């Protein structure tokens, strides 16, 4: 059963200019039409590189950021349409855990006061004593001693602070927790502790997670379903194992091939799909397929003119690529077999405007000169 259903969610931030800062000169298309559905009791992992809109999407679900258009249906209610007061109440059931545990905890409040604050606001617990009992129970669940109650955030390590952040969400007995980069600020040995904790809590509390992270290995480890984002939209979605076994979108393939694996035997055998250039700016996303400025499989037709829809290919697998079928059956090869080594890759003759890093639209006229993967092999 789907507990959280997003339909064509868009979040566009106006870019203002002028002396009075009131003239809108453009938009940052941070989230640009995302549809996905999170099953109750499961974990949906949203993965993508910096700036692709993951955090914005998470915040939009909680309406911490205004939604430009689209719907966010939680347990039958469209949150996008809720009046502010009702939305405030709905937030008890939808909680967020942030990346930077220190930045999201008030340094002048002790742990009891941090945890009790939300409870009081949502009318949980009759009095202070009752709330304290509940907090103690939760502290035990997240693996913190009761002595933590009277201590302050700076007295804890990064991993412990993240446990406090999780406890703050848990005291409200939420149904859904949105975890934005829950472990990326932590050392690996601590990451594993927090990942295991999240998994245990899901089991014992029946939680549903939307986990947002840039680390594909972490996301694969904890998610039932993974959505891959690129420049504001989903390019692929599949059950965790299927995505790993059969990545269908060129971007997913490149992303996967770039993740280092802590095993020299694997590393030595792996083929790397090196992408050219950087992420274009979400303020001026490329026309057509947003990935076409960097796609090693880019074709002369459709890719730069027509935006591919996220199409169902069966088995709960969805892909947004015009040529996904041809790429999968091998009839389309990368424009250059794995990108050439970077040092000799002087690919473009460098016309201004064709450099994806500049965040400008690629001029369709230069298309044949500049293959996406650089110098032909």
């Amino acid at each position, binding site marked *: 059963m789907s507990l959280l259903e997003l339909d064509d969610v868009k979040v566009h931030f106006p870019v203002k200019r002028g002396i009075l800062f009131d003239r809108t000169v453009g938009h940052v298309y941070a989230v640009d039409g995302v549809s996905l559905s999170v099953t109750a009791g499961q974990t949906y992992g949203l993965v993508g590189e910096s700036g692709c809109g993951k955090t914005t999407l998470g915040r939009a679900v909680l309406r911490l950021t205004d939604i430009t258009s689209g719907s966010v249906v939680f347990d039958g209610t469209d949150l996008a349409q809720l009046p502010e007061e009702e939305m405030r109440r709905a937030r008890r059931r939808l909680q967020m855990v942030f990346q930077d545990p220190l930045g999201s905890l008030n340094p002048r409040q002790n742990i009891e006061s941090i945890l009790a604050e939300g409870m009081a606001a949502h009318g949980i617990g009759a009095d202070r004593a009752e709330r304290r009992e509940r907090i103690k129970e939760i502290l035990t669940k997240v693996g913190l001693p009761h002595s933590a109650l009277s201590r302050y955030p700076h007295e804890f390590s990064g991993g*412990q602070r993240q446990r406090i952040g999780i406890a703050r969400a848990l005291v409200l007995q939420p149904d859904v927790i949105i975890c934005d980069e829950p472990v990326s600020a932590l050392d690996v040995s601590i990451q594993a502790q927090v990942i295991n904790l999240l998994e245990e809590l899901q089991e014992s509390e029946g939680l549903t997670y939307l986990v947002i992270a*840039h680390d594909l290995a972490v996301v694969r480890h904890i998610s039932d379903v993974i959505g891959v984002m690129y420049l504001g939209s989903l390019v692929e979605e599949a059950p965790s194992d299927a995505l790993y076994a059969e990545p269908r979108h060129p971007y997913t393939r490149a992303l996967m091939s770039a993740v280092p694996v*802590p095993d020299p*035997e694997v590393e030595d055998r792996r083929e790397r799909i090196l992408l050219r250039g950087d*992420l274009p700016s979400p303020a001026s996303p490329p026309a057509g397929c947003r990935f076409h400025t960097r796609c090693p499989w880019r074709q002369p037709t459709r890719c730069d003119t027509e935006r591919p829809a996220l199409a169902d290919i069966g088995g709960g697998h969805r892909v947004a690529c015009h040529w996904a079928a041809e790429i999968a059956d091998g009839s389309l090869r990368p424009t250059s077999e794995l990108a050439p080594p970077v040092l000799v890759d002087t690919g473009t003759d460098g016309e201004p405007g064709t450099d994806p890093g500049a965040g400008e639209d690629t001029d369709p006229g230069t298309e044949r000169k500049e293959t996406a993967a650089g110098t032909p092999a």
Partner: protein
Amino acid sequence: MSPQPPLLSVEDLTVTFTGRGRTDVRAVSGVSFDVAQGQVTGLVGESGCGKSVTSLALMGLLPKKGVTVGGHAYFDGTDLLGLGREQLRDLRGSKLAMIFQDPLSSLNPVIPIGLQVTEILTRHRGLRGDAARKEAALLLERVGIPDPTRRLKEYPHQLSGGMRQRALIAMAVACAPRLLIADEPTTALDVTIQAQILELLKELVDQQGTALLMITHDMGVVAGLCDRVNVLYAGKVVEAAERKPLFAAPTHPYAHGLLGSIPRLDAPRGEPLNPIRGSIQDTIAWSEGCAFAPRCDFYSERCLSGTPELTEPHTAGHRVRCVHPVAPPSKEGADR
């Protein structure tokens, strides 16, 4: 082992921060390792274990006040730690170069990239004017910056993170250094950009014979890039080995635990992680015994009778600082 003498030989490096009124912080506590000519040597460990302080000490970039540095670092025969300011400055940028995690902080924000590159070319290679500009453009092009002539005129903030790191690498390799120290050069970058930068560093080592001291917290990066690896814990090397033996048979309980706690992209879903308990804050001073003892599953009383020595419990060249080294996995055998 390489037949040549090592390019850099760090011997018993210690760095202590002594603050007014504060207790001293022993950030690096007797670190020894070699960097072989033309190879990639890894220094790996979690935050706070002394990676950056080690590299800054080698480069002579630690503040003079409130810091005590001990030990030796023989680079091509000369002890870097005994050199004066001037001599070090001459060495840096010519034979010795460094790149950092945050390229923005090592680039001057108000000077165009081009000028920062040509300055180095002028100082160390005597190139001026057009010749310097041409060479600068060539360097940027070689590190994979498209449209280098235009980029040379731009300021650091106009470049993306990946491109800034490339610019910094271009500056670092402008004088074909013998040794490049890279402190978490890809940590701030996206993984697809990281792949580009790692490829670039590999090319440098392969084509120019530059030796690379790669400092990272990422065991995946180590697995793909390093020839020899030194694992650091609380300011000491706790395990040192060639790349493959280290991953096949991690022998120090810390290294062993670290590898068991990393989620792997290629591991089947649902396989549980085995975290190391506690955190880096649960550490005792090396003078009292093994600093890892409070977190160690293999702990016994013996671990608290002085600092464990580096030994070679299973195979030659695979050094481990532990009195109860983890047995090698049975089918891998001790002869790997």
